[in-house]
């Protein structure tokens, strides 16, 4: 950093050591046992408004200096850019380690395979089941951050979890059921105890049975009706139609090329109605167990709890030091995160949560709903580049008739326009139903990066929603 300070307006360096473990069974056999490790230093420089970034896997001084030179070369090679200010931030100092009960990397592979195989076995039997799968995931990141402003901090986070999947198929279609969540299951910032507590084998017979039952279930009818979403699907809804929309780099047009923009503008802050008065959304990087929990972001800004929507009104964005400065904010919201050492940080979600309401339990909410559809577990998602028009599908649904779950329905889909959809929110279950859900594959940036984020939700009800699109 001493060397960088004389060449650049600002520079930072991150040493990141990442390990991951993936274990999976498929149709009763071990399918994947893999452990990966990637370590190196990423150097980011700012020179006259242009950013340059280069990374090296070698941590010796000479290699890091070469990376610095390369980053400077990149910054100089580009056309001139306005020198937008970085909002000030006291230099980050200290260390942080996320709570980890049982080190997931210290548990023998054989023990993990025992758990997975038991769950896989408990799903198999019906010939219509073409795929049964159980999986385990663990991640650990160690990060050291330094900057020309005097920051020097280190962090260590561990994440662990897993899930099961059953796919049933006939001549015409295939149906899928997952537990506890789709797309690789439930992962939290925790130790092995989180995975062990998922009770995969206990839920396996139900998951398999539901996948098969779905083949013969009637399709979700096409109609406008009352929709109740389970917490897991609501997490995806929140992610796609709120979390991404409030990323300030998208709002400012910096991500138009790939991820897209936003229907929001900076002028909407404190004036735009995002949803009904029951809609309260918070981005909280301090939440225990969240995949987006840290002490400092990858710009050295402390993790914070930031109001995004309050009683339906837009109150905040997810920002960086540069984007915050662009719209005249005093501080960054601490949302810059990078995937490993060889990617530079981008504005990302932390843990973006819909606060619980007072509608009681899910059963009580269904009992209070005369007619509608209850949808559970995300299967598919698509939304336009401004985060307005969406179409989502879940794995299954139940019709609601006179306050009770009725028929099982297959191929449930629903669509809407973001502010209209959230304006139709008229009930949110209470704190007893609220929990964190993972999104493990949030993609953004060029070159692409994957972020793991969490969303806290409780099941919620929306009125007059178009369901049964396809």
């Amino acid at each position: 950093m001493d060397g960088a300070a004389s060449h650049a307006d600002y520079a930072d360096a991150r040493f990141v050591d990442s390990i991951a473990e993936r274990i999976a069974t498929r149709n009763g056999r071990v399918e994947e046992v893999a452990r990966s490790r990637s370590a190196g230093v990423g150097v980011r420089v700012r020179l006259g408004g242009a950013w340059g970034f280069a990374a090296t896997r070698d941590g010796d001084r000479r290699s890091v200096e070469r990376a610095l030179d390369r980053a400077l070369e990149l910054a100089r090679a580009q056309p001139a850019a306005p020198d937008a200010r970085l909002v000030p931030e006291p230099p980050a100092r200290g260390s942080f380690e996320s709570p980890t009960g049982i080190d997931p990397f210290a548990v023998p592979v054989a023990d993990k395979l025992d758990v997975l195989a038991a769950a896989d076995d408990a799903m198999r039997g019906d010939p219509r089941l073409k795929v049964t799968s159980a999986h385990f995931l663990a991640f650990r990141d160690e990060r050291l951050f330094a900057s020309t402003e005097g920051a020097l901090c280190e962090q260590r986070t561990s994440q662990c979890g897993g899930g099961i999947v059953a796919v049933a198929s006939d001549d015409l279609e295939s149906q899928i059921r997952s537990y506890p969540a789709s797309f690789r299951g439930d992962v939290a910032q925790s130790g092995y105890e989180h995975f062990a507590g998922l009770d995969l084998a206990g839920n396996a017979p139900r998951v398999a049975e539901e996948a098969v039952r779905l083949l013969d279930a009637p399709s979700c009818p096409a109609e406008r009706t009352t929709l109740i979403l389970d917490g897991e699907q609501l997490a995806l809804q929140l992610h796609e139609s709120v979390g991404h929309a409030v990323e300030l780099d998208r709002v400012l047009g910096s991500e138009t090329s790939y991820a897209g923009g936003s229907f929001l503008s900076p002028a909407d802050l404190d004036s735009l109605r995002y949803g009904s008065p029951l809609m309260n959304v918070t981005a909280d990087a301090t939440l225990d167990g969240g995949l987006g929990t840290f002490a400092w972001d990858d710009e050295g800004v402390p993790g914070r709890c930031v109001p995004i929507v309050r009683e339906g009104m837009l109150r905040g964005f997810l920002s960086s030091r540069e984007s915050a400065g662009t719209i005249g904010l005093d501080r960054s919201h601490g949302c810059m995160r990078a995937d490993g050492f060889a990617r530079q940080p981008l504005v990302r979600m932390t843990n973006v949560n819909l606060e619980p309401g007072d509608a009681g339990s899910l059963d009580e909410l269904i009992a209070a709903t005369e007619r509608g559809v209850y949808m559970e577990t995300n299967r598919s998602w698509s939304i336009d580049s401004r985060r307005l028009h969406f179409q989502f599908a879940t794995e299954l649904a139940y019709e609601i008739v006179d306050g009770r779950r009725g028929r099982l329905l297959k191929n449930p889909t629903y669509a809407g326009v973001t502010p209209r959809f959230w304006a139709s929110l008229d009930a949110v279950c209470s704190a007893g139903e609220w929990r964190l859900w993972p999104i493990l594959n949030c993609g953004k940036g060029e070159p692409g990066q994957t972020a793991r984020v969490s969303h806290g939700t409780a099941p919620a009800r929306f009125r007059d929603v178009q369901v049964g699109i396809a």
Partner: protein
Amino acid sequence: MTASLELAERALAAVRAGDGAQATVVGERSLMLRFARSQPTQATAVDDTSVEISVLRDGHVAGASTNGGTGDELAACAREAERAAEAAARHGEPGAYPGFPEPAGSRAHAGHDPETALLDPAAGGAALRQVFDAAASRGVDGHGIWTAGEVTTAIASTAGMLAIDRVTDAGLRVTCVAPGGRSGHAASTATATGAIDAAAVAARAASRASVRGEPKRLGSGDYAVVLECYAVAELLEQLGRLALNGLAYAEDRSAVSGRLGTQVAAPSVNLADSPRYARSLPRAFDAEGVPKRPMPLIQDGVAHAVVHDTRSGALAGVRSTGHALEPAGAPYGPRPTNMVLAAGGAADEAELCRPIERGVYVTRLWYTNPVRPKETLITGVTRDGTLLIEDGEVVAPLEDLRFTDTVLGVLERTQALTAQPTLVGDHGFYGRRFATGVVCPGLRASSMHFTGAVP
């Protein structure tokens, strides 16, 4: 180049146990310059090498990877892989992996450009300036990326494989946005930066953003469509994942499971995986060292074949076709990476429009996702140049539309194709750089199902 082979041999030599092993070394050097609002935003240089050691034990393959290259790091990686393979072997029945493929000799190709491999950021900077100038002259902003990369892949295995391949790729992607918010898109992909005409790409994107008139709104329904190559490529990529994936086929999850040899598309549809096609992004072998070879997938609209890696092939009772994406096969299966859709006779998209009384011109599809994979039913939205066709001509811009339709349905309803195919590259590159692309023309289909306008 020999350093990668030497590293692969050292990594293989570090393995002391198991029934077989493969060491895969992938070295990436790349540049990516991003821009938005005709200003540079981020520039990233990557220079990294990963070593993956896969160990076979009793029909199970387990692996470990590192980006270190010292003796100690390779030894630690090998021990991890051996422990994982031993744990897998001790657990339950023997695995089904038949063994690492034997060497079969791959052909040389023209997929490496030494000039591109220099990764000169000045070339990228010059391209950005050309884009900004072209956009400014047309009163629009430019957003996008310029990228170049070199990837070296070396494989050494106990089956005698010792192979190395080096490829380059380059790309420019431009979205132009007009003051009123209308946008247009164009892109260019090649093995060499010298083949990218930045000003021309920007001009094409700007033209799509500059179609006169207020955007009209189209209701839900089935409309005749003209799809530019970018939209066609997106559909074919989904087809590759959902239907042409040998693992999905073997597990009866593919739209062509039980349908090989039957008509699945219009007779004018001829789709192949062609790694040696002149305009493709060639590579010599797959992630298991199996040579890449041309392979017909759909011929005259008849489903001909799906692609396999060693694992899915073993499940289906056939040999690998050279489409492994990871050593011993990716968990999600193999997919074609060099698809070529044969061109037709229409001079250009304007000629495709002529028979259409009222329809939709689609430049690009966005955020497509499967809804019902076994039917290839997907949903997505149009983006960056959605236009109204009336009486055979583009007459006005349209608000973007959501579609929900089957890929095979669109291909069944294909009426005509343009004569000039274009390489449409995917520069997403999550994780390691692995450049792929679809070479395809534009097409007209008699209908596509749109489920509403995007506000």
